[in-house]
């Protein structure tokens, strides 16, 4: 069964450093998403991406965050200057259509120290 692949599975970074989280969505999917889950809290929407541009973003997704689809397969989330409160599990997801069930990746656990 097709999978969404995320790397790395765990990243530890110093506060103020830039991090890039990487995702390979399912190949024939058109919609791509990033969500995050702080330990013990709800899964929260960050951003959706369609047709090579951001289609929707949350209040969390401020100027410190950016997304890119640099080639036909990868989808990345960059956090420019990490803060302690950015520590969370970050999930990438993709779907073939906007109101279709997403397929989520296994996540990247980001720890900011």
């Amino acid at each position, binding site marked *: 069964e097709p999978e*969404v692949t995320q790397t790395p599975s765990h990243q530890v970074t110093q506060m103020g450093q830039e991090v890039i989280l990487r995702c390979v969505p399912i190949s024939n999917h058109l*919609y791509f*998403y990033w*969500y995050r889950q702080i330990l013990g*809290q*709800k*899964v*929260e*929407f960050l951003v*959706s991406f*369609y047709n090579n541009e951001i*289609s*929707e973003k*949350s209040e969390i997704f401020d100027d410190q965050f950016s997304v890119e689809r640099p080639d036909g397969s990868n989808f990345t989330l960059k956090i420019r200057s990490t803060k302690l409160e950015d520590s969370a*599990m970050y*999930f990438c*997801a993709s779907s073939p259509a*906007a*109101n*279709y*069930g*997403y*397929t*989520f*990746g*296994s*996540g990247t*656990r980001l720890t900011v120290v």
Partner: protein
Amino acid sequence: EDQVTQSPEALRLQEGESSSLNCSYTVSGLRGLFWYRQDPGKGPEFLFTLYSAGEEKEKERLKATLTKKESFLHITAPKPEDSATYLCAVQAKGYNKLIFGAGTRLAVHP
């Protein structure tokens, strides 16, 4: 404000003891309601999408139903491998994002 509330927060069942999980929602216009299963340290795994009141979907021991205000996930004769957190999410018309509830932690004991 669009909102999803799940109950109970946690549920402990004996193997074979059927039960239901509740998802109450308020949304400006429902585009879809989604059920996911999440195992510890993993990403949510898609189970069902429901689009309109009265719709029902089934998969193995799970059955999801939808009304205009809530959805139920019925678990029939659960097994220990059904232990997980079950997440409900709604998508409002005109939006792509999913709004998740806090989940129900299900533990099924032999």
